[in-house]
């Protein structure tokens, strides 16, 4: 969520000056974008030779900063540089800005695909059968359509995703009605897109 970036956060960010390499800085930035974890804090503490507590604060500050950039869609270097206080180490400031800009598109796509929604349609299959007989009529030839929807419901809390499958039978009339409805949706979409 887009919490405000505070002066304390920037103080914590200066701990990155202790990083052995630019790649190490990059790793920490990218990994703290996801939910902060103790493992990450521990690894960061080792890499930067700082205390675990300091590492945890650093990871949290990076998290706040990257989410702030994502939320407000800060897409130019000037916009991000403007966030930093004047006293901030200038090379580190440029490096962090560069890393944030590099990863923003990926983070944005990820955020949009993980947003709350109804179960997402994942797969669609259909087949057309010919019904040749039934209990009420011994000989007939009536086509019928079966459609299978596979939907994925992502439950963020568990990290697990449940896939549910629904198979639906359609008569010719139902299929015509569906196509009618879908055609109307398409027309309305083209009106919206045209605006």
């Amino acid at each position, binding site marked *: 969520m887009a919490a405000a970036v505070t002066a304390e956060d920037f103080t914590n960010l200066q701990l990155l000056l202790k990083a052995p390499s630019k790649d190490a800085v990059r790793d920490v930035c990218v990994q703290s974008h996801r939910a902060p974890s103790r493992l990450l804090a521990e690894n960061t503490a080792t890499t930067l030779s700082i205390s675990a507590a300091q590492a945890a604060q650093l990871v949290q500050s990076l998290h706040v900063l990257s989410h702030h950039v994502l939320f407000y869609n800060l897409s130019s270097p000037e916009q991000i540089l403007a966030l930093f206080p004047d006293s901030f180490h200038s090379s580190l400031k440029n490096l962090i800005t560069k890393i944030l800009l590099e990863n923003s598109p990926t983070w944005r796509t990820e955020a949009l695909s993980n947003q709350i929604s109804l179960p997402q349609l994942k797969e669609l299959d259909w087949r057309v059968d010919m*019904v040749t007989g039934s209990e009420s009529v*011994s000989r007939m030839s009536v086509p019928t359509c079966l459609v299978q*929807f596979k939907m994925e419901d992502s439950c963020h809390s568990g990290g697990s995703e449940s896939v549910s499958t629904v198979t639906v039978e359609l008569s010719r009339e139902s299929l015509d009605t569906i*196509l009618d409805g879908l055609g109307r*949706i398409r027309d309305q979409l083209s009106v919206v897109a045209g605006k």
Partner: protein
Amino acid sequence: MRITGPGSGRSNSSTSAVFFFLCFYRETVNKIMQLHFTKDVLPDSVSTDFQNLNKFNEQQFLRLIEILFQFLLEPKESDRFMQQLSAFAGDHGMSAGPLRNLMKSVLLVPQGALKKNLSQEQIKEDLWAEHYAVLSRLAVRQTLMVNQLVDMDWKFGVTVGTSEVQKVGNIFLQLKLVIRKGNSTENVYMELTLPQFYHFLHEMERAKASMDCFS
């Protein structure tokens, strides 16, 4: 065996057609049973029931036919069918139970005819054709469907913002499918992105084209 029954001047031709049809059966019950249901074994009570039909006068008989065919045309209205039979029994001072059994036997005739796909020549074509066409269409509609789609609701909109990204502009489509499972319905909700919607539309058009090949 051709019967010219009363009522040739009736205004409602379907009713008279039905009347002729059942008169035909009423008079020649046993012969018909042999001719058309040779592969079926019917209980003796059925032929007795048909002979009991003879005991009704014309007005009563006509009313019974009306009730019978109302039920055949709307087979889901079994409660109404039973109520009408009970009312009839009350009106004519007879007990409802035997009347219901009688009607069950009488129902075998049109239902058996459909099952055996009896040709129209066998069932007095000029009297039965109209009802047969309607009833066979209804029978086809009664054919078992698994997870039949009853209704589809949709809405589409634009995601304006989320907790993670302040400004967005993605179009989404939400579908609600109402599916009949046995006697109750189940709602299934899902969301589609725009490309998925176009894929869905394309696939349904292909399915329709496939179905049209068979008509």
